[in-house]
């Protein structure tokens, strides 16, 4: 544990860098996935095509995507932008399906009731469907966040620094603590972001916090 104490500064700096690299794909991924998921939810024929295509992107192993993406984007293999783009693609692939499923999960009765009350389409989406799809979308977002944070480390193989630096550096210098601290810090970071998202979800979706329905009262 000596190594950790002596290199706390490095670990912290890498953790901050790691977080910076992960947040962008998480946020961008959600922003792009929302309209795509809506399309897949709204127009049945697009659902199969869109989600299958995204599913195929998702099967591409990360290292392969990191090195093959520049052929399409023209960005340098060794740049941060390349890694961020690749991770955004994964995020969209997961999140678009989760948005579509989330919107599908909204009770049709509630949707009908909102229409009957006089919500126009756009307004109904933001006031009713979007918040009610919230819990399922949040579950998807948490999966994206955690897996993105884990995946960022692979970037070190194409020269993009994150906590993954501790893996390769520790391996070359045969310092077990270094590799171990990289693994532990990555997981801590992931669990921390996951926790923050979960708490945020509770704060903005208070109705999900109510437990079982109140016991039936005598009065109807």
């Amino acid at each position, binding site marked *: 544990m000596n190594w950790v104490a002596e290199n706390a500064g490095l670990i912290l700096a890498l953790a901050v860098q790691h977080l910076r690299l992960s947040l962008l794909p998480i946020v961008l991924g959600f922003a792009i996935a929302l309209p795509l998921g809506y399309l897949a939810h709204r127009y049945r024929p697009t659902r199969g095509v869109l989600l299958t295509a995204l*599913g*195929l992107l*998702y*099967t*591409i*192993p*990360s*290292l*392969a*995507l990191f*090195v*093959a993406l520049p*052929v399409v984007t023209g960005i340098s*293999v060794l740049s941060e932008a390349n890694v961020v783009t690749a991770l955004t693609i*994964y995020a969209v*692939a*997961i999140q678009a*399906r*989760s948005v579509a*499923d989330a919107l599908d999960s909204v009770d049709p009765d509630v949707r009908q009731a909102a229409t009957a009350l006089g919500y126009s389409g756009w307004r109904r989406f933001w006031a009713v469907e979007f918040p009610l799809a919230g819990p399922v979308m949040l*579950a*998807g977002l948490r*999966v*994206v966040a*955690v*897996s993105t*944070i*884990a*995946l960022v*480390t*692979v970037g*070190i*193989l*194409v020269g993009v620094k994150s*906590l*993954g630096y*501790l*893996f*390769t550096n*520790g*391996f070359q210098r*045969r310092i*077990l603590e270094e*590799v*171990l601290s*990289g*693994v532990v810090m*990555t*997981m801590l970071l*992931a*669990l921390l972001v*996951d926790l923050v998202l979960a708490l945020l979800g509770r704060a903005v979706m208070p109705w999900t916090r109510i437990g079982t329905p109140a016991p039936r009262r005598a009065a109807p």
Partner: protein
Amino acid sequence: MSVFLEALAWLFSPERLGAGGIPQRIGEHLWFTLIAFALASAIAVPLGYLVGHTGRGREVAVAVAGAARALPSFGLILLLVMLVGVLQIGAAVTAALVILAIPSILAGAYAGIEAIDRRTIDAARAVGMTEWQVLTRVEIPLGLPLLLSGMRNGVLQIVATATLAGYVGLGGLGDDILQGIALRNYPQTLGGALLVVALALVLDGVFAVLERVAVPHGVRKRGGALPRSSSASRTPAASAAN
């Protein structure tokens, strides 16, 4: 697109067929995938069935699957190689692949059983089936599509992680990718990447077909589509990390 052609040229150049060539790299990659998948399934399927059938340990299984998603696969490989010793790289990498594949398969196994209508299972007990018969005649067949879906995620996880094993000198298709980066030989890197992608897509396709075939006849919808729960399970319920 000329890099693309160069990559293809590199892939199909005659010297790529001998020792250290493409067939050998694919063979290594597949071999590791197969061993790790078999071991992971041997552990995760019975465990998942136990959790699914008894309903006990569900929280633990969910927590394990969640934590596994946060596990950086590359770091895990290096950590195990260092722990076990450089002489046992094969064993260390296999162990890492197994650890990473277990959560998806476990989740598929218990989710498959959990997703079955409780009334169906009650009815099976009510007609006098033993617990073993309930498991083997009702829960396993009905849960098969979701299990396969979990296995599909597990296999993709293994294929992706095995690519990273090139870093510790274990061969496989990652070897070409990383060597290409080190030698600044981009066609080689891209060629290796294309092969990994092709391998992943083929395995994904195989499992897609298996999933479809595994849906019991009575449950199959018109047009042979999968039941909703099955298609929805690919993500995000199952583990996601490359």
